[in-house]
């Protein structure tokens, strides 16, 4: 997630204000009296990062400062759950903000509790493995598709294992939102959490890459209604390859793995159909 932040800030430049939603990046980015990035920054109340950004970006417009990047950095908890209402409102209003959700698939800052983004089967402290429960029993929310339904001008998924792809997307978001003022840009970046996923730190990128190579984390963008996969593995690796790297999945039964494989397959098929449908309606 630090990678997600660092590369975004490099791409956006110094004319940027950062809204750090409470969460890991909210704290990792600063120490008393200073920030890592030396940009103006604030930590708003948890539920309304996007609403805060809305007020900020419109105020800058009033002041004739339209080229300030208003950048929200929020985790999956602050986006999929508590922050969803504010994000939805900002998207509907076409507030020209750049919203990056770094998804480590749980509330990690508070110690690994499940979020709406936690995938099926994952161990977390609130979806533990015991006699009756076997990790999370529900499928995750698909926030990018929720944002697709909002018809925002720029939507993308990304991964910390594909930095160039991500940086391109951040630049595109800045162009479409800050410069062209078309509305809210949303980037959802997959970001492994070593303690939360029970992986060694040095395996983070490898695990993130496997997520893409197994089809678990498709990389795509939708630019003003036009859908495109930006990274598409020719042949997908079996999902077990991804799951077995992480301690949070080591309780999974073959049946659960099969369910996950089926879910990955149908999700990708759904995306393919969506891609076709969207290009038809805009083409």
């Amino acid at each position, binding site marked *: 997630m630090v990678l997600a932040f660092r590369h975004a800030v490099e791409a956006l430049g110094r004319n940027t204000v950062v809204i750090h939603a409470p969460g890991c990046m909210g704290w990792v980015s600063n120490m008393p009296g200073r920030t890592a990035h030396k940009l103006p920054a604030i*930590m708003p109340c948890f*539920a*309304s990062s996007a609403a*805060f950004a*809305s*007020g900020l970006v419109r105020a800058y417009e009033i002041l004739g400062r339209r080229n300030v990047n208003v950048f929200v950095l929020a985790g999956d908890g602050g986006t999929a759950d508590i922050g969803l209402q*504010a994000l939805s409102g900002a998207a509907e*209003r076409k507030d020209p903000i750049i919203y990056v959700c770094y998804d480590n698939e749980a509330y990690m800052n508070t110690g690994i509790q499940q979020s709406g983004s936690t995938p099926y089967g994952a161990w977390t402290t609130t979806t533990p493995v015991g006699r009756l429960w076997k990790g999370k029993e529900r499928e995750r929310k698909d926030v990018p598709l929720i944002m697709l339904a909002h018809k925002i001008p720029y939507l993308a998924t990304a991964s910390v294992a594909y930095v160039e792809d991500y940086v391109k997307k951040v630049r595109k978001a800045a162009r479409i939102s800050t410069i062209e003022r078309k509305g809210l840009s949303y980037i959802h970046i997959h970001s492994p959490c070593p303690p939360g996923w029970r992986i060694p730190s040095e395996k983070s990128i490898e695990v993130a890459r496997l997520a893409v190579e197994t089809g678990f984390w498709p990389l795509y963008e939708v630019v003003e209604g036009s859908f495109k996969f930006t990274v598409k593995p020719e042949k997908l690796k079996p999902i077990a390859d991804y799951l077995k790297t992480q301690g949070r999945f080591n309780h999974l039964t073959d049946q659960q793995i099969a369910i996950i494989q089926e879910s990955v397959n149908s999700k990708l098929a759904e995306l393919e159909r969506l891609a076709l449908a969207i290009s038809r309606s805009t083409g």
Partner: protein
Amino acid sequence: MVKAEVLTGNEAIAYGAKLSRIQLISAYPITPQTTIVEKLASFIANGELKAYYIHVESEHSALAAALAAALAGVRAFTASSSQGLAYMHEWVAYAPGLRVPLLMAIANRSLAVPWNVFCDYSDTFAEMTTGWLQLYCENAQEALDTVIQGYRVAEDERVCLPVMVCIDGWTVSHTGEPVEVPDQEKVDAFLPPYRPRYSRLDPDQPMYLIWRGWEDPKATAKFEFFEEEAAQAAKTVIKEVNQQYFKLFGRGYGNGLIEEVKVEDAKVALLTMGSMTGTARVAVKRARSEGKPVGLIRLKAFRPFPSEDLKKLSERLDAIAVVDRGVLHGCGCGVVYSHLRSSLYDLDERPRIINFIAGLQGSEVSVEDFEAMIKKALRTAEAGKPKELVEWVL
């Protein structure tokens, strides 16, 4: 040239905001403040007010957006009531610590449960420990004037705290009264453009507004101390602003913190807030015509609580009947009553203080109710001690 119109309290607030040249509004509907944001929308739609209107999707977001705008450097406005105010409580508590001026209009409405759209102060009293200043208006004219004054007070460098301008839901918010709408040029002379003084979010002057209280708790607690100093300093500022407004516009409201009616030669006084004061004025007038030494104190500023002013005039009184439109649940009494007793405790000569809890859930407080209160206050003064301290007028 002075314009006079028949305006509801809500419309008057909208005019006050318009004259204050607000630059950004975050609007969300809730009864009974809704017509404030509707009126502001129509001003903008007709090109009468140049401000950005954000249709936020909740009150929590409303205050988020307004605070953000103030940090960016524009004069912002929002309004709420009851459940909406409660919903944004997180931001209400957050704002004062940043020392950023903000103004929010509240049309007072009772907080559920019971579910009620009518007036009492349970909504704003629930925010009383947050550090916001709270000014209560008796009528629509005062509401318009107090919005303009409110921005002056909030933006004063000695204050830099957010202000709630409160009007009684329905009785003031929705009742039409003749209101003088001041000239824009005169208001411009009174209220200069807004500039952020302390906290801001500006890439040219990067500032870090992520508060880590726990790193050095005592140093952090010092900020709370400074915040409280500012709230206390606001007493002086409010008085100054009230005085200056009176000079320029011909309207003042007591000394800005409290208003005294026939208290100089009174033995007992009623203490009220908001629109019920109008009814109390009638009861006091009647009592005076019967030769009773009764006065009336209207509390305009609930925060900062004007202890010094109340102490001063209490020294001559034998009894004060505090009429509370909100209960301090768990303490067995009304909110203002509790505050007053605390403020006057150390006086060498203290008046008797009795409490009438009245007007809850929008219930009417009649002239007869006030007359009964006056009677009890006089009896208390005579007997030297009250029969009962707290009475619920139900």
